[in-house]
């Protein structure tokens, strides 16, 4: 999966990929103060593509808001909501909305799920439907955080650590391996990194084709940009 940190104040974006063995579960957001946790599990392609590169994608997210007593499990198959002892199940094949005391869900048929957790966070999960008979690829999900301002300063995770904003500088622009993707040196979190100007796709407006967003790509699973390395974010269960 590709991670994107959009920084409108600087009119710039940072991006990186995180890949690991299919089945691995990563923590995307962990806010111990507000009790919010978002974990995601990746899958791979159905079989190794001819180019030999194993691509991974998120196919399942587990979301908990402890204080509100809300738990969500969103997969490419369906959406389950648990609040206290109640459970509701929604299907991607229906347009639906659910208004519970602490959580609002809006499903746009076969396309997106918008989740608003009361006084805390708002996010959208996009469903990417792939042709069922595609020889390699399968359905996957995207996770977009829209409003994070009520999360606590201690929020962390692969996405959460950037909710505080990030300071960086890019210098020494030079030709890269690909003509239209120049390399540069980035100074961030005390590291000096070689980065490449590229783009990644934001699918919110156009779930099929996406929209190219120019960004500074940080190589090697975001090493130097993320705190620690990607293995530090691996957890054993979805909740």
């Amino acid at each position: 999966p590709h991670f994107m940190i959009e920084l409108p104040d600087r009119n710039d974006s940072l991006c990186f990929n995180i890949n690991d063995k299919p089945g691995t579960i990563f923590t995307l957001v962990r806010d111990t103060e507000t009790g919010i946790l978002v974990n995601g599990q990746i899958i791979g392609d159905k079989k190794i593509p001819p180019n030999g590169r194993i691509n991974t994608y998120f196919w399942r997210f587990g979301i908990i808001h402890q204080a509100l007593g809300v738990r969500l499990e969103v997969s490419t198959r369906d959406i389950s909501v648990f609040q206290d002892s109640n459970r509701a199940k929604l299907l991607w094949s229906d347009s639906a909305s659910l208004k519970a005391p602490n959580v609002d869900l809006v499903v746009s048929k076969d396309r997106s799920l918008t989740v608003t957790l009361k006084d805390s966070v708002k996010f959208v999960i996009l469903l990417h439907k792939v042709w069922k008979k595609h020889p390699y690829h399968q359905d996957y999900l995207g996770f977009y955080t829209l409003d994070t301002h009520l999360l606590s300063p201690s929020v962390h995770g692969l996405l959460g650590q950037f909710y505080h904003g990030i300071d960086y500088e890019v210098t020494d622009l030079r030709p890269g391996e690909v003509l239209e993707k120049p390399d540069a040196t980035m100074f961030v979190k005390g590291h000096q990194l070689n980065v490449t100007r590229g783009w990644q796709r934001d699918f919110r407006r156009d779930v099929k084709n996406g929209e190219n967003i120019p960004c500074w790509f940080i190589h090697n699973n975001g090493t130097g940009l993320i705190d620690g390395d990607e293995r530090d974010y691996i957890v054993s269960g979805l909740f």
Partner: protein
Amino acid sequence: VRSVQKRSTDTGKVEVHSVTVDCTVTSRFAHTVMTSVALNRANTSQEIFFDVELPKTAFITNFSMEIEGQVYVGEVKEKEKAKQQYEKAVSSGQTAGLVKASGRKMEKFSVSVNVAASSNVTFILTYEELLQRKMGKYEILTRVKPKEPVQEFKIVADIYEPQGIAFVDAHATFLSNDLLPLVEKTVTDKKAHISFSPTLEQQRKCPGCDGTLIDGDFLINYDVNRAQSLGDIQVVNGYFVHFFAPPDLPRVPKNVVFVIDKSGSMGGRKIAQTREALLAILNDIHEEDHFGFVEFDDKIVPWKESLSKATTENVAEAIAYVKRIVDVGGTDINAAVLKGVDMLIKDKQANRLPERSVDMIILLTDGMPNSGESHLPKIQENVRSAIGGNMSLYCLGFGNNVDYAFLDVMSKQNNGVARRIYEASDAALQLQGFYDEVASPLLSEVDLRYPDNTVEFVTTNHFSQLFNGSEIVVAGRLADNDLDNFLVEVYGQGPEEDFQVQGQASAINWNVVYPDEEYIFGDFTERLWAYLTIQQLLEKSKTGSSDEKGNATAKALDMSLRYSFVTPLTSMVVIKPETEDSTEAPLIANKLTEEQRQQAERVSYRYHSPQQRTHYQATPTYFVDGD
């Protein structure tokens, strides 16, 4: 004073009886008491908040609460000891009293206490500060934000200045034409009395409305008469204080190099504000001054290799240059500052600058050196060694992520100060304001001398510069308590000749100067001395050698405890009364350092209300997806 308020609006009623701010200033030393009385009218106990803001430069000296006739008084303790109680309170989920950052000038003190049904609570907070003279005036700032009209609302200030009061202005950001006449001001030769006390109805936004007009800053500005070139020396109860700001001194020409960070991280508002401020500064620059620019990212590019005299032509050329500064690249602070130092030294050696002039470097940066030398202590060492005590370095740090501690230490090591520039709309004004403060040096290498055998524990008495509109303050203890006359000398370098005055200081008889005042507030000269000594020790604890740092910290702690000042080394602990079935939990009042404030502001950005968020045009998005 944000006064008292309920945690929840649906439960019982809290009636605020009174909010009073009582400030007494004696020879620039301000002693302020904020009192708030509230009644829990509900039929159950409930938590009542006391939320006030006080100037960053002030030290809390007391906090107490009176509930049902029982008074709970604060005690100043060493921070580490207080922390143990504090952590216990936090771990058990209690609200501890906290001091938080609140903008440029103020910090917030906030506590809450559980009050039984139909009971009164009185909160009393006392703080003290030495008012600093800036741009020719002292300022007493009181921030008032009661939620609702208050039965008795009063701001009173009494100013006692034995030198005589030159002027007093009182105004508030919330004053309407109706409220303006309520500000009462009585000024006699050596005393001023200001009061503002609107009735319940006068506080209302409209007849019968709940809202209050009283919301903002109440400001009192004043200055004292200055007749003596020696300054004013006051001897009271065995302590002396010397205020030095002689009138009618010509300004000394200055040679200033602006070292401007134009790296990528300065992009957007920061660089725009830098350009804006530099343009304003250039429009005001004195013609006898010399100036230069060194702009830097990972490359160092001086505007010109030498400083230029501020002639009309040169200033016009500089304005065009400043307009072209754009952000790009990394950050090499070390080489940039050294280049500025080198330019000043070479120009001085080549006699291109006036012999009697003041040299200064103003560094504008958001920090984070990442090119060339990037080890911060090494940069400090290089800069200190290059400057060699021969010029002043002022650092202006942009944004919340600037490493302020690094800039602060580096400036203080080189006879300057650091200032944070907050990225609000008026950042350019902040920059200009800072420049205006240092724009007109009057004297350099100022020495205030007192007879060695008659004084002890004297605060810093050498100053590299005296600026127009500011004031030098030195205080100390008299070795002989009965001494009421001693010789004082002041030396300095003026633009044409050396400044040299001497005179005799004598004790003031307060009963003669203020015959009608039975009591002002006791030992203020001693407390002024203690305040100043602690401030200087705290600075030394950051900039000195490791031995000096340890000694300075120990002394500052000892004095903070002795004089009951809440400084960054101490905390005030109040044992907070709790409900019958819970244990006592302490309230803690702390003092933030500038770094801690900065940290708190980074965090508080995240707690803007949704309404405030709507001011931001673009919201960052963080996402993960697949291709």
